[in-house]
């Protein structure tokens, strides 16, 4: 079977096959089947001359899953399966879960390791010392950053065409959002647990400005992201707060802040824009979904 796969010219039908096999994996839980298929993929990817890539960062995970052939994906970071923060968490379950440390990467010998620019510094250095190619992705702070990163990953996995498709998809969402722009330049504060505020240099801020909203972080005295006190928020009183969770449940004391009575009084559900965390935590293909969601939320609260 392995031999026969290699023998056939793969590029033309690989995509269709991948989809079929992905569906097959979803249906069967057989370890042997999975292992066998991974072997098959690996062989196929090598045959196609495309690099095999491992990701140790939740944001590069998303880019990789969107742009690479399944066969190219050696493994993903542990957080790739986190349903709250990882956009493609369901799909991530079909790939190997890496420890995020250097050891399994050295064993698996991917052609490229993609990583964040700030996290896992020691791991990245160790891998580089071992002669491994490590591609580092900075945190995307603007829409341009995002497009650039999509294209970069597309080049890296050998599918620049798919990258262009994703960029076009994002552009289309931006156009849609600009058409549905808010009636007034409301001041919106993007607020996370413990009072973390996304500043001007964040993707969230970029999303707000596309829809004609302004980031209230600036008037809280900070253009970059950081913690804001509850009192400062209440005193500044932005028009809306943008949060990731609309439930009335606090999983820990950090998220309890968002349900503090002081905030609940000023920001009932009609004053809260809710965009799930997995749409905003990274800059990547999910941003078109994030924009659509933001437009929908604006409509909900009557903005």
């Amino acid at each position, binding site marked *: 079977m392995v031999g026969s796969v290699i023998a056939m010219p793969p590029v033309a039908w690989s995509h269709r096959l991948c989809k079929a096999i992905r569906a097959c994996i979803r249906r069967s839980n057989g370890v042997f089947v999975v292992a066998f298929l991974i072997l098959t993929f690996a062989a196929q990817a090598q045959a196609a001359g495309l690099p095999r890539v491992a990701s140790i960062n939740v944001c590069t995970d998303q880019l990789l899953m969107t742009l690479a052939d399944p066969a190219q994906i050696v493994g993903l970071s542990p*957080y790739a399966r*986190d349903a709250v*923060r990882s956009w493609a968490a369901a799909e991530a379950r079909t790939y190997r879960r890496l420890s995020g440390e250097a050891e399994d990467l050295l064993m698996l010998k991917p052609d490229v390791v993609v990583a964040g620019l700030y996290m896992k510094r020691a791991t990245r250095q160790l891998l580089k010392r071992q002669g491994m190619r490590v591609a580092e992705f900075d945190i995307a702070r603007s829409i341009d950053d995002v497009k650039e990163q999509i294209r970069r990953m597309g080049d890296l996995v050998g599918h620049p065409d798919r990258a262009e498709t994703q960029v076009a998809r994002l552009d289309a969402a931006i156009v849609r959002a600009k058409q549905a722009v808010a009636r007034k330049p409301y001041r919106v504060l993007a607020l996370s*647990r*413990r*009072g973390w505020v996304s500043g001007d240099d964040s993707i969230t801020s970029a999303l707000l400005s596309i829809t004609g909203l302004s980031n209230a972080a600036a008037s809280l005295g900070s253009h970059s992201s950081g*913690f804001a*006190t*509850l*009192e*400062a928020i*209440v*005193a500044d*009183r932005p028009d809306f707060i943008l949060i990731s969770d609309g439930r009335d*449940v*606090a*999983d*820990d*004391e*950090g*998220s*309890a*802040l968002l*349900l*503090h*009575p*002081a905030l609940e*009084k*000023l920001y009932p559900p009609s004053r809260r824009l809710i965009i799930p965390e997995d749409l905003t935590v990274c800059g990547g293909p999910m941003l078109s979904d994030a924009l659509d969601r933001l437009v929908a939320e604006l409509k909900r609260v009557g903005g």
Partner: protein
Amino acid sequence: MLASLGIGPVKLSPVAVLDALFGGGSEVQRIIVQDIRLPRAILGLAIGAILGLSGAALQGLLRNPLASPSLFGAPQAAAFGAVLVIALGGIDVRSFALPVAAIVAAFASVFVLLAIAGRNASLLILILAGLAISSLAGAATSLTMNLSRNPFAALEIAFWLLGSLEDRSFRHVMLALPFIIAGAAILMSRRHAFRALSLGEESAQSLGVDVGRLRLWAILGVALGVGGAVAVAGAIGFIGLVAPHLMRPLIGYDPARLMVPSALAGAALLLAADIAVRLIPSTSDIKVGVLTALIGVPFFLYLIVRERRALGGGIA
């Protein structure tokens, strides 16, 4: 109390604060004073008071000036109980499950400690056992947070181990206050028995004090109070140790008479510490537990120097 209401990131004049407290001022001012600063001040007072009271009660029970909830690992154990409930998942941190778990854990820790130490516990054994329990509880708290799927574990661990009153709300007050009041009532109702205990357990028993039951009540009172406090504010240490000592030069050594002043001193201490963390300029919020430890630990060392003879002899 007024200072606590008056101080915060947003500058309000004392007049504006008073005005807002009684329903005047702008809506924002009212929210800042009534919903943000008032619950924080109330919790500071209540938690400080119960910690001071618990310290005085434990010192009375064990006839030992170095006894205190934090040295015995009670707050750390309570934090572990609370964190365990959070880690099990699906539970809102504002539900009563949290203080109940904290209370059970605090009760277990003090009970185990006194069981280990035995009837005529020496200072050294108590402190060593307390150290062991608090280290174990601290490690268990960290591990539980790490094992839970919460990616913000590091920050949350700091909260539980150091304690903070920041941005608490009236929901937190409602969560903690019933337990704190119950704990305080239990401890206060036993205060005269603590005085009788200054003659030793045998004499106290011969005076009609059921020493075994007194221990259980004292542990229960401390566990209720400390557990309720920890469930909303994390493990704030050393208030219980310091407060009775501050009052002894003024009130004398009578364990019963010391209890109310210790509670007041504890309330004042914690409130002052909580005001101080808001005044100290810093890039991120300082945890109030850090400050109480900064004050409490040198004080504890000073006490050890003073009690060195008793410690060296191994008898208390």
